[in-house]
């Protein structure tokens, strides 16, 4: 597969509406039984507007919202069998709860090769429906055996 020039990779903004059922499904998959993810009444009692998202739920927003594995592979010309997740960072500026619609603006932060590994870092700024910054997510993926001419 011909890979796009690194500088030319265009990551498009996308929107995602968070649903209670998706949060519950996500918490269940992790085995996280915290009641604030399952019951809106409990969440409100604990001071949330509605069911809040778990700390790593933004990955579901990104994957289901448009930046899924297939898309990343295609955009960066990666070998799907050689891609691993190297690191992940979240900064939380505001509450995100079920019922919210967020707008995500992804940017390529860096892309470089080191010792036959290719590192790609993508940063995503999240805004809520009134334009307030609510979250920043930064993800580094690694392609093993990055030199295509090996």
């Amino acid at each position: 597969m011909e890979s796009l020039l690194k500088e030319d990779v265009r990551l498009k903004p996308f929107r995602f509406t968070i649903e209670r059922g998706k949060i519950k499904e996500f918490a269940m998959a992790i085995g996280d039984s915290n009641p604030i993810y399952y019951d809106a009444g409990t969440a409100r009692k604990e001071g949330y507007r509605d069911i809040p998202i778990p700390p790593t739920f933004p990955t579901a927003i990104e994957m289901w919202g448009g930046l899924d594995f297939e898309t990343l592979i295609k955009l960066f010309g990666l070998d799907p069998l050689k891609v691993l997740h190297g690191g992940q960072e979240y900064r939380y500026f505001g509450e995100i709860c079920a019922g919210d619609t967020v707008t995500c603006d992804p940017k390529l932060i860096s892309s470089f090769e080191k010792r036959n590994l290719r590192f790609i870092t993508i940063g995503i700024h999240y805004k809520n429906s009134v334009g307030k910054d609510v979250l920043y997510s930064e993800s580094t993926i690694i392609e093993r055996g990055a030199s295509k001419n090996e």
Partner: protein
Amino acid sequence: MSELKMIKKPGITHTQLVKYAGASGDFNPIHTVVPIGEKAGLDGVIAHGMLIMGMAGEALAEWFPRKDLRKYKVRFSKMTRPGEKLTIEGRTTGEIWEDDEKRLTGEVSVKNEAGELKLSGRFEVKI
């Protein structure tokens, strides 16, 4: 510096990886399709790194109110396979001022029963 309550997770199952793939939308087949994991030289399927980060995130929201979490950053170390039982450990490391609020800083790590490190991370929570 103070230790936080250790959290033990049940063994990871192949079914859990399928569930997490659906929940997260990460359908990279190295996590769910054994022949593809083998073809990738991984000796079978490996867990999503984000599932492991999610388990450590579960611990964070048990140690502190979810809404007080401000920063959570991890590096993935060794791969995790079905059958492994993971433990989440954490400790607070200090206090800082940022964005006009006082925050606790801390470290979190996830290990298997043999003590192999899967993930190491740092976090900040509002006090």
